[in-house]
């Protein structure tokens, strides 16, 4: 990818005293690509974004945009545009002046400013909001104006720092789709920081999962969900059952049965940690798992079961229930799983996800 990388971060590191916020982080984005930095609070994703934006100086490493090394450039001259977690609109300026601010600083001719501000406000769907002041805008409108303020300068790279996190659920869904649409329309290379896995999975071309200042896995959303590189990623992305069990004679002891899989052949017997997603478990009539409770998620039923390995969550659709069958607390069920959806870890060492059969 390096020969086509539009934004390239190489060996970026940043420490605050003894705390290492980012450790030797390397990432590459193609032109027009949207990559999400996904991780829990304090994992270093915002620090990384701020280093790209020029607000935080890296201790080590380099940042290149379109081949140009911008590591030493201050924020005000970088070809980046940033949208912050809070809209950060200047309250003493109306929307028009907020959006036109950067153009005025660049001494763009007045007719050009007028045209670009108008076009950008139309692009974000608020063409008539120019005279409004920030306190008169809703949260979603304010974030759109913040996006317009970044877009109007035609940055080479758009930086989004959890821009939807302060919005209510409905608005967040709508706005993220709109932002994705605008990003694709304008072909902007975009780096998004989020701790919301659903958001990252929904709008990213690629996702880099971060923890403790490092990238744990970097791939497309589908692979990240179905083939997490290790348990740390698996735990963070989507719902996951993590169960302690063991390998006996090359067979995996799980839900009351010992199953021999091809992928287990090379492994030595002993304790093993197994991870499997709730939707990859199937409830069948039988014994081995007792239903503790059932909660309705709307699109599915979430069934909480007690097994020999501890509590397990399984999702089942109403449509898959047989006529007359119901899932009631206290009932016994047999749990089935797909071998290719299992993630195994022996001790602290990640092994592999089992190959598809």
């Amino acid at each position, binding site marked *: 990818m390096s020969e086509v990388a539009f934004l390239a971060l190489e060996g970026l590191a940043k420490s605050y005293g003894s705390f290492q916020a980012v450790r030797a982080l390397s990432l590459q984005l193609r032109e027009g690509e949207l990559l999400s930095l996904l991780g829990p609070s304090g994992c270093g994703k915002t620090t990384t974004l701020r280093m790209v*934006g*020029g*607000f935080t100086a890296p201790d080590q490493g380099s940042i290149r945009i379109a081949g140009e090394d911008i590591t030493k450039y*201050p*924020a*005000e*001259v970088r070809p*980046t*545009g*940033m949208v*912050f*977690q*809070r809209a*950060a*609109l*200047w*309250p*003493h300026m109306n929307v028009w002046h907020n959006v036109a*601010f*950067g153009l005025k*600083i*660049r001494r763009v001719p007045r007719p050009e400013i007028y045209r670009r501000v108008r076009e950008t406000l139309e692009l974000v769907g608020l063409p008539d909001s120019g005279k409004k002041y920030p*306190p008169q805008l809703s949260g979603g409108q304010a974030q759109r104006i*913040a996006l317009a*303020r*970044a877009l109007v*300068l035609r940055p080479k790279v758009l930086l989004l720092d959890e821009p939807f996190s302060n919005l209510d659920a409905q608005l967040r869904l709508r706005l993220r789709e709109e932002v994705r649409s605008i990003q694709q329309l304008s072909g902007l290379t975009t780096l998004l920081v989020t701790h919301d896995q659903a958001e990252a999975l929904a709008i990213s071309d690629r996702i880099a999962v971060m923890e403790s200042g490092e990238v744990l896995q970097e791939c497309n959303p589908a692979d990240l969900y179905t083939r997490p590189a290790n348990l740390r990623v698996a735990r963070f992305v989507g719902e996951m059952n993590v169960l302690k069990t063991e390998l006996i004679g090359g067979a995996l002891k799980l839900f009351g049965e010992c199953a021999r899989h091809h992928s287990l052949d090379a492994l030595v017997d002993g304790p093993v940690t197994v991870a499997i997603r709730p939707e990859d478990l199937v409830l069948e009539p039988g014994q081995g798992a007792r239903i503790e409770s059932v909660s309705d998620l709307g699109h599915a039923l979430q069934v909480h079961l007690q097994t020999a390995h501890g509590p397990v969550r399984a999702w089942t659709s109403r449509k898959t229930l047989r006529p007359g069958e119901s899932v009631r607390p206290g009932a016994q069920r047999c749990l089935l799983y797909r071998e290719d959806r299992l993630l195994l870890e022996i001790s602290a060492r990640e092994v592999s996800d089992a190959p598809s059969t």
Partner: protein
Amino acid sequence: MTTLQAGARTQQEKRPIRAQLTGLLLVAPPIALLALLVAWPAVSAISFSLGLIPGNNLLFSQGLHLIRSDHPTFQVYKALWGQPAFRADLALTVGVALWSTLSICVLAYALALYTHFHRHRLATLLRSLYLVPMFVPVVIASYGLLLFFEGRGWLGSLIAQLGAPYRSPIFHQGGVVLGQVWQGIPFGVLLLGAGLEQIAPELLDAARDCGANIWTLLGRVILPLNWTGLLIVATFTFIGGMGSFTIPFLLGPNAPQLLAVEMNNYFGSFDQPQPAVAMAVLTFLIASLAGGLYVFATYRQRKL
């Protein structure tokens, strides 16, 4: 049921009246105190300066060169304005107050910005040091400044050792400005610093992201967002400067003199309370103009 509801309604209707009365009773003491200590003396001083001398007030009726009248007259003000010395005093007072205000605003803003945006040792030290003048009584500070800046003081002696000429600001208007700056800096930095704390860091980052350099950031974002605080500092410093006595008395020039010192002379040494009160009324009016700015600033802040 109906009777019960009606009873409850009457109780609810009574409650606001009782609440209003309680509220009025609570604010009555401070309002009465304000009327007694501020409004009444102010009204009586204004009427005295307009020639209406109360017969039962010995302090007002026994001074020299009293101008008495049955109706309000500006004779006292005309007489004052006719004196070149008074005009020079007034010009000096307003000039010193303006210079002090300007100096304090600039220095306090620079200090507030520096201590707000920097986290290294010097900034940490300054954050503690700038408050020191607040804990030193004005009279002590004035003598300290006198000993340091006077012609034969520490600085003068040092410069004399180097063979360079030195013109001490002490006993000139510069000395008063120096004293006012010393006294006013902590208040200015505290208030402006608090204002800067209110500015979300993202607002500044967003401006930098749009291409604002430090001066654009200061002029187009920080100052407009902190304008009210600056106006408040300027207003209070100016009003304080107009009425300041100790610093002008100890560090100021002999002629012309600042109005507060001159008022004291007229009232005590010259036994002419009427011109002294007229000067006080004029000082009050000029300060009121500045006070109007403060009211405007707070109104604007509320509107935002």
